[in-house]
């Protein structure tokens, strides 16, 4: 029991204990109700057979054992990992390249920045996904352009070997948001570094490798980590482009799409919960790997 002295000490260390929790209350209630509670419930549900209508029946690790033998699940994991591993680095590379091109004070910077940024705001919408079905359709824009140079393009969306690429291209198309962050980061690099390098006769390539890349690396890393996490959760684009099926031949059956179909299509809520935990494990593994890898290429100035 804290005596008068203890209370006074607490008062000095935490002068706003009550007010603090009052301000924090909505967030705390939300955290418990919609995050921590559901996380615990989800862990339990993943050990049950549950279809919403009847009470959950405890079945131990059966869902996880079933997942091990579920070939569609592994196929969907492969689709998702392919998507993440290909689209995220490509998008960031394009964003960085364009940000470097749009260097300080160039004419038309505001115009280019707006034009490149706009798609990243629209990219998550159903309308753009619908447009994408058309752009890469058999009679779509891409094949129209290819026909101009005499190439007879396939139906990109209806072909299992190209359907995923169209969604990857859609992700790259939204490079504007990381580009804007990189532009802001580039502005933070003191010009004196470049001046000194120029005096020493360093080539532009050398200046990029020795100045720009190291000083920008924390920002690149931060974006890489977050984009990987978000890319694993891609849903709308896969859903709309494939018409909700994940087809053709499950080639766009993203993990989240399969989870949705199991949970909310077939009402296998227990199985869907187990899948969600598996997804979280995979995302954590990728994030941990990213952090481990960062020791070799991310440079911290301070």
């Amino acid at each position, binding site marked *: 029991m804290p005596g008068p002295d203890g209370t006074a000490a607490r008062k000095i260390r935490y002068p706003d*204990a009550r007010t603090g929790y009052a301000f924090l209350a909505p967030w705390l209630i939300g955290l418990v109700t919609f995050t921590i509670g559901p996380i615990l419930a*989800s862990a339990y549900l993943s050990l049950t057979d549950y279809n919403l209508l009847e009470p959950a029946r405890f079945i131990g690790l059966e869902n996880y054992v079933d997942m091990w033998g579920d070939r569609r699940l592994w196929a969907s994991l492969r689709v998702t990992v392919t998507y993440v591993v290909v689209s995220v680095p490509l998008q960031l590379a394009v964003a960085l390249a364009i940000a470097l091109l749009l260097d300080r004070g160039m004419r038309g910077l505001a115009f280019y920045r707006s034009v490149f940024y706009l798609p990243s705001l629209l990219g*998550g*919408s159903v*309308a753009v996904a619908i447009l994408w079905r058309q752009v890469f359709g058999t009679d779509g824009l891409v094949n129209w352009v290819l026909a101009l140079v005499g190439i007879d393009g396939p139906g990109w969306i209806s072909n299992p070997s190209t359907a995923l690429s169209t969604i990857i291209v859609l992700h790259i198309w939204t490079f504007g948001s990381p580009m804007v962050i990189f532009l802001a980061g580039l502005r933070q690099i003191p010009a004196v570094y470049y001046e000194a390098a*120029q005096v020493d006769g360093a080539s532009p390539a050398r200046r990029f490798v020795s100045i720009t890349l190291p000083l920008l690396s924390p920002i690149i890393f931060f974006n890489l980590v977050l984009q990987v996490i978000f890319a694993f959760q891609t849903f709308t684009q896969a859903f709309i482009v494939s018409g909700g099926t994940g087809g053709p031949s499950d080639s766009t059956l993203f993990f989240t799409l399969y989870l949705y179909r199991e949970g909310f299509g077939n009402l296998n809520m227990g199985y869907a919960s187990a899948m969600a935990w598996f997804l979280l494990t995979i995302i954590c593994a990728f*994030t941990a790997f990213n952090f481990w890898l960062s020791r070799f290429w991310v440079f911290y100035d301070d």
Partner: protein
Amino acid sequence: MTTDTTGPATAAPPAVRHVVARPPTFRRRLRSVLKHAGLLALSLLMIYPLIWLVVASLRPDDEIFRDLSIVLTDPTGENYASGWEAHRHSFTRYFLNSAVLSIGAILGNLISCSLAAYAFARLRFPLRTLWFATMLATIMLPVHVVIVPQYVIFAQLGWINTFLPLVVPKFLATDAFFVFLMVQFIRGIPRELDEAARLDGAGHLRIFGQIILPLMVPALATTTIFTFIWTWSDFFGPLIYLTSQENWTVSLALRAFLDATSESNFGGMFAMSVLSLLPLFLAFLLGQRYLVRGFATTGIK
């Protein structure tokens, strides 16, 4: 990531080429021309599909796929008329639903996130560091881990097929991203202002309402625009919770074009797609300044 961009234009150091002054040679000018040509070509490539969508929505239905150029000879509004009435309810309903949801989400985020952000940025209370770390972790938590139990909760409350599951959580600051954004912003506001008010006898509620809130309008604007864009484009949430057609959002109504009667009404689908993008485009035009700043202060999309 705390990339401070206050006054980017003034803070930007002079570019290298101004320091090492050289007369513009022919080669340099050529390089500049080539660069602009390349960037303009890329701009066109990026925007072409969007322009085509607008043009196609104004073409007669049978011409849409015959002509993929963006030259419009005789525009017609018939797709807009047919698309507007394509489903059981007219799009008036779906746009209203999306608008109500967006306004609710914006209000919720503005109120709840700013309160939490003030606590994190300015108040000292037990376990603050732990809560702050928890808040950061929830930004990265995939929604799928919690979606099934959340659904069960809302089902038991009888909230399925209402807007409540999509709005109520916003009033409890579940979009932690905005809490973080506002914390970063409040930290940039000089503490002397708070302390002056304190000496005048103001409590935290007054400091928050009369000093911090007015000063954090840019962060509130960023929050408003992002919340609007994300809620307006959201598909997963409405797909799960809004089951009957009268509650559909624009996203769900657009998707219905894909499974309705073998995609016959392409014109209507494109016309409604254009209309659904219009509010996002307006938000982009009006709020570009705040969007860019929001990106830069947090480093997140």
